[in-house]
């Protein structure tokens, strides 16, 4: 199973949202990293065939997904960044409705819906209207609907937004167990989620694909560019103004700063092992 993006481009008028993206996805979990407006959602919607590319194509097992049509849609699951649900539907009815759209037969749809409601901790409220749900419950319901048709390709746009830490941990473990032999592409602002579950990371900036690879490979890019230094008073303020600071904590009356910079920020700075948050800041410091 292979999903291929071939010079995928999307323009809105004069604005280029995605510019000639080339990538190949095989079974595994892929994390999209990028600032707001980088093109992550556009990329996901193109992969889902709900946006038409300006040029280039998305191919599934060698065939353009636009030619596959219904056959492609039957193997894909998608969670948009935000959507309205139907406030007057119950959780069960919502899943049954989505199941009917996905072409599942009534008996299987009911069984699978109950199973997913149980998995996502919504069984007790299955007959409650969605308008009574919290943001986290709605998000879990949204994730549940993506799994109804046991998709081979799963596209999740900010799946963990609104989930509490416990729910996020549970979601990550669920996704990991689900992702066997499947292509999972997810985007999130919560870098630790990507760090924990993604096999490969794609860094998108200004509509172009900057990096694609395993975390360790990508982090090599900023090896030697992450620093930790102790500074006091005005010196700390000067460093914060001049460099991208990942974190700042106080120890013994001094500020301990973690800085991402091509140059050594101060004489006392010591090199630190990079993490994904450093990488994010390195590429997107102007956007954040």
């Amino acid at each position, binding site marked *: 199973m292979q999903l291929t993006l071939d010079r995928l481009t999307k323009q*809105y008028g004069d604005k280029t949202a995605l510019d000639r993206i080339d990538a190949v996805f095989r079974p595994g979990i892929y994390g999209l990293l990028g600032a707001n407006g980088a093109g992550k959602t556009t990329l996901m919607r193109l992969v889902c065939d709900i946006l038409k590319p300006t040029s280039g194509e998305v191919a599934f097992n060698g065939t353009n997904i636009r030619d596959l049509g*219904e056959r492609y849609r039957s193997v894909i699951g998608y969670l948009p960044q935000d959507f309205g649900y139907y406030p007057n539907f119950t959780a069960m009815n919502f899943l049954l409705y989505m199941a009917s759209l996905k072409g599942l037969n009534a008996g299987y749809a009911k069984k699978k819906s109950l199973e997913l409601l149980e998995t996502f901790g919504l069984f007790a409220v299955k007959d409650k209207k969605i308008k009574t749900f919290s943001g986290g419950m709605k998000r879990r319901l949204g994730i549940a609907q993506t799994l109804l048709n046991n998709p081979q390709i799963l596209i999740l746009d900010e799946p963990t937004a609104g989930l509490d830490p416990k729910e996020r941990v549970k979601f990550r473990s669920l996704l990991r167990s689900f992702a066997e032999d499947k292509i999972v592409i997810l985007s999130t602002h919560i870098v630790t989620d990507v760090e924990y579950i993604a096999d490969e990371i794609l860094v998108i900036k200004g509509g172009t694909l900057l990096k694609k690879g395993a975390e360790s490979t990508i982090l090599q890019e900023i090896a030697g560019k992450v620093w930790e230094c102790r500074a006091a008073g005005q010196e700390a303020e000067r460093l914060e103004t001049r460099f991208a600071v990942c974190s700042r904590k106080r120890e013994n009356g001094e500020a301990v700063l973690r800085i991402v910079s091509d140059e050594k920020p101060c004489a006392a700075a010591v090199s630190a092992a990079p993490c994904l948050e450093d990488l994010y800041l390195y590429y997107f410091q102007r956007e954040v």
Partner: protein
Amino acid sequence: MLRMIRFELKKICSDSVVIGSIAVLLLICFLILQAYCFGSSAASAITPDGTRLSGREAIAFHQSIAEKYAGDFTDDTIAEMVSDFSAAYPAEYAKMTEGGSVSSWLPSSYLYLAMFIPPANYDEIAQDALAEGTSIPPLTEDGLVSIRDYGAAYADKPLQYGYGDSWAYFFMGFCGQTIAIAFPALIVIIIAVSAVFASEYSAKMDALILIARHGKNRLILAKLLAAMIFATGIIGGLFILFSIAFGLQYGAVGWNADMQTNLGLSLMGVNLPLNNLQLILFGFGIVWSAGIFTAAVTAMISAVSKTPFSSLIVSFAVFMAPWMIRRLLPEGALRDLLLVFPANAVNAAEVLRLPVSAASIYYDQPLAPALCIAFAAVVAVLIAGTLAYRAFKDHQAAG
């Protein structure tokens, strides 16, 4: 597909705006029924001895008088009715012959006899006409205006007379005029259907739907069918409500009398062999066609609108435009053609009467307006359905 249609109907019917509009429609329905069914003059009567009757007693009285003349409706029947009327209600008869207004509590069989009683100066009018080189039809042996002069066209066999009040009120209240229940029913259809597609965009459900296996094909068909079913349900529901109310109040007496003999409807000249029951079914058919037309066009507008509100405003404007334009136009072909649009078509009495007018393009083609309305509905469903299908299928869920 059935499950999808059921869910789409559930979505339509759970919208609070739709629920509110249905509640208002039921209130209007209640008021119309109160005026036409329960509080009409057919539920009040005055007997020859001056006794005032009301409710079922009055209805039974009206029906018994009408049943006396049930059967062939000829000049002789009219003469008999006029004779009985003059004998039973001499004072009211005198008022009628003098051209004055008579009590609406009179037996309905007698109320419209004025159209057969010539004015006192009839001979003078005839002579004036002769002097001007024209002529007016001669009176019958009994000195009355003949029914032939009202253009009761299929005179090869006599029209059938019977009790017609309830059928006339049913028809008038349902679709026999602009201010009937059919018009607000179409507005409820617009309110409900305007959100069918547009609400998916505004609720950001479009992406989820379009990614689903049937999201770009069967679901669109299911939405269109749900819109048609809703329209049918609203119009059918009102028709059943009217049938129950009128059935309980008046029964089915007079169902097989010809609509031309239902003098209160002024359909004497309509050359279409329909009895009273067929008349209201004809009205239902016209209103249903208008409802389907409205639902299809509204669904199409919904598919190309960003929000249910903008869809509602545009749909309402598109619905009302032919109605307003028609009122501004002088008699002519364009005015007649505009009849096919739902806001005009729901006046089923006009649909029937138009072919009687020599100035109409439908002249002497009694079924032509109805067929044009049905044809327009089919065309609207096909074209608007196709456009809605394409618009939603090709919708770009940009997020």
